[in-house]
C-alpha cells in the first residue's frame, strides 16, 4: 500500500483519462434522452483521442515540424526534440470519423422526433411495443 501513493502521483494523468472515459460510458448507458447519449458517445471518443495523443508526448520536446534553413542540405534530426507524430496522424482520422458519425446521428434523431414526437427512450419503446 505504501507504494500506491507514488504510483498514483506518477500516473495521475492516465487515471484522469479513465475517469473521463467512464463519464462518457455512463452517459451512453444510463441516460434516457437520445441526444444525451450522443453527447456521451462524443465524450468517450474525445477522451480516447486524448489518451492516444498523450502517449506520443516527450518531455521537453517541441511540435513535429522539422526546423530547416533554406538550402542548407540535410542534417541528422535530433529525435528527442520532436514529439512523436504518428499518434497525431491516426487521431486526425478519428476526429473526422467522430464528426461524421455525429452528423448522421443527429439526422436520425430528427427523423425519430418527426415520427414519434419525443426523444426519450422509454417513451419510444412504449410506443413501439405492440398493444
Amino acid at each position, binding site marked *: 500500500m505504501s507504494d500506491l501513493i507514488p504510483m498514483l502521483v506518477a500516473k*495521475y494523468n492516465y487515471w484522469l483519462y479513465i475517469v473521463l472515459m467512464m463519464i462518457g460510458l455512463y452517459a451512453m448507458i444510463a441516460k434516457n434522452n437520445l441526444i444525451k447519449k450522443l453527447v456521451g458517445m*462524443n465524450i468517450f471518443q474525445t477522451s480516447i483521442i486524448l489518451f492516444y*495523443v498523450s502517449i506520443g*508526448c516527450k518531455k521537453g520536446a517541441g*511540435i513535429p515540424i522539422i526546423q530547416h534553413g533554406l538550402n542548407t542540405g540535410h542534417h541528422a534530426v535530433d529525435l528527442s526534440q520532436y514529439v512523436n507524430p504518428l499518434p*497525431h496522424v491516426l*487521431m486526425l482520422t478519428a476526429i473526422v470519423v467522430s464528426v461524421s458519425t455525429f452528423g448522421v446521428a443527429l439526422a436520425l*434523431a430528427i427523423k425519430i422526433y418527426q415520427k414519434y414526437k419525443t426523444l426519450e427512450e422509454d417513451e419510444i419503446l412504449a410506443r413501439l411495443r405492440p398493444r
Partner: protein
Amino acid sequence: MIWQLDLAILTLVIFTAIAAISVKDLLSCAILFGAYSFLMCLLWAIMAAVDVAFTEASVGAGVSTVFFVAAVFHTTRRTRD
C-alpha cells in the same frame, strides 16, 4: 508540457463533461459541449499536438456545435433527465 497547466485544464474538462450530461436544457448542453471541445483543444496544444488541436478547434468547437444547435431547433429543447 507544463504539468501544472495540464492538470488544471484536465480538471476543468472533467467538470464540463459532468455538467454537459447533467443539465436539463438541450441548448445549454450544446453550449457546454462546445466549451468541452475548446478545452480539449487547449489540452492538445499544451501537449504539442498542433494539427490535432487545429482540427478539434475547427470541427468540435465550430461546426459540431452548429449542427447540434440546428438539430435541437428541429426537435425539442426540454429533456426529462
